């Protein structure tokens, strides 16, 4: 696809252009500008989608004034809700299944205030939620503030995570626990 920012997506049914602070990489695919209907970010780049990545139906970027989502290359987002007024960073080759929620407690209501964070220009803090490259987030998993998913790790279906998951680990359950490793399998 590769639509210039602020333009209409060719296949889009939603009659609005992409927000000007959304950047799509080469050969990436985004289902609709509808994904940004609750995007209130004033960051210079609110959402960056890397090359060869796909963001599919049911994904939403519910960002507050300071919200920012960075998605790498060859990453597939089948259907995730990103609700944040901070920064969410997602690596390359990440797979995110349907009905996944990544949220830091911010709700993108029309009059939502910034959560007392520093002004836009001065912020350089660590992401509130981070997913390392080649990780796999199973269907209907929930990642809350503090979730840091290591490289190659797997978050199983329906798991709720708000902690650091080591590289290559498999976590499952509510609350999530480490149940195995995908590099050294039993």
């Amino acid at each position: 696809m590769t639509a210039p920012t602020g333009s209409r997506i060719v296949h889009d049914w939603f009659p609005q252009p992409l927000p000007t602070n959304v950047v799509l990489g080469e050969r990436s695919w985004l289902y609709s500008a509808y994904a940004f209907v609750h995007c209130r970010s004033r960051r210079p780049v609110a959402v960056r989608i890397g090359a060869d990545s796909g963001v599919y139906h049911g994904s939403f970027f519910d960002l507050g004034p300071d919200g920012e989502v960075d998605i790498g290359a060859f990453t597939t987002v089948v259907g995730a809700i990103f609700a944040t007024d901070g920064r969410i960073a997602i690596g390359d080759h990440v797979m995110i299944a349907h009905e996944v929620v990544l949220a830091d407690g911010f709700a993108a209501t029309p009059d939502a205030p910034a959560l007392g964070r520093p002004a836009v220009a001065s912020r350089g803090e660590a992401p509130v939620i981070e997913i390392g490259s080649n990780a796999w987030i199973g269907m209907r998993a929930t990642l809350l503030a503090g979730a840091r998913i290591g490289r190659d790790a797997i978050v199983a279906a329906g798991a709720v995570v708000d902690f650091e998951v080591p590289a290559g680990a498999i976590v499952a359950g509510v609350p999530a626990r480490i149940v195995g490793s995908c590099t050294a399998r039993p």
Partner: protein
Amino acid sequence: MEAHEVDAITGRFDHATLPANVKTGRDVWIERRASFARCRSAYRPGCVLGDRVRVHAWTTFNIEPDGSVEVGDDTVLVGATLLCAGRIRIGRGVVVSYGVTIADCDFHPIDPAARRLDAEANAPAADRSRRPPLVPRPVEIGDDAWIGIGAIVLKGVRIGRGARIGAGAVVTGDVADGVTVAGNPARVVAAGEVPR
């Protein structure tokens, strides 16, 4: 079983066509033909619905070319997302509630290196035929079982007759006849009797 006309398809918005390899019993009710839009089974039939099966609008049959689904008589599928790469068999008189997912495959490799190749083959402009092979394990749901709201039933699971799956449960292992399970991962919370 002979193929029958579907009893009623409601909704003028429904412009989809029922795939030819969906075989339906007597008095089947399908609210929305688009529920079968992703039925890509190469089998004939690739999806068999028994007599009086009711398929509500929120149900979707996502069947890969090598997959097939069978649904027994009098079963009600309210909101089942069926993800099938091999075989899913649902018995008679089963009730599957809103927002339930039943998957007979992980659909991606556990091994990080293979998973990386899968991610690249799934890119918007990539060739999906280069994906690593899917490894399904059949799912079987016994007669008269109930699957609660939002439950997830994963590959290789056998749910016994008359079993009850609590709302939001993630079922990763077999469930014996008549018992009730709940939670993530699902645990037995009540023994029970198998209904006659």
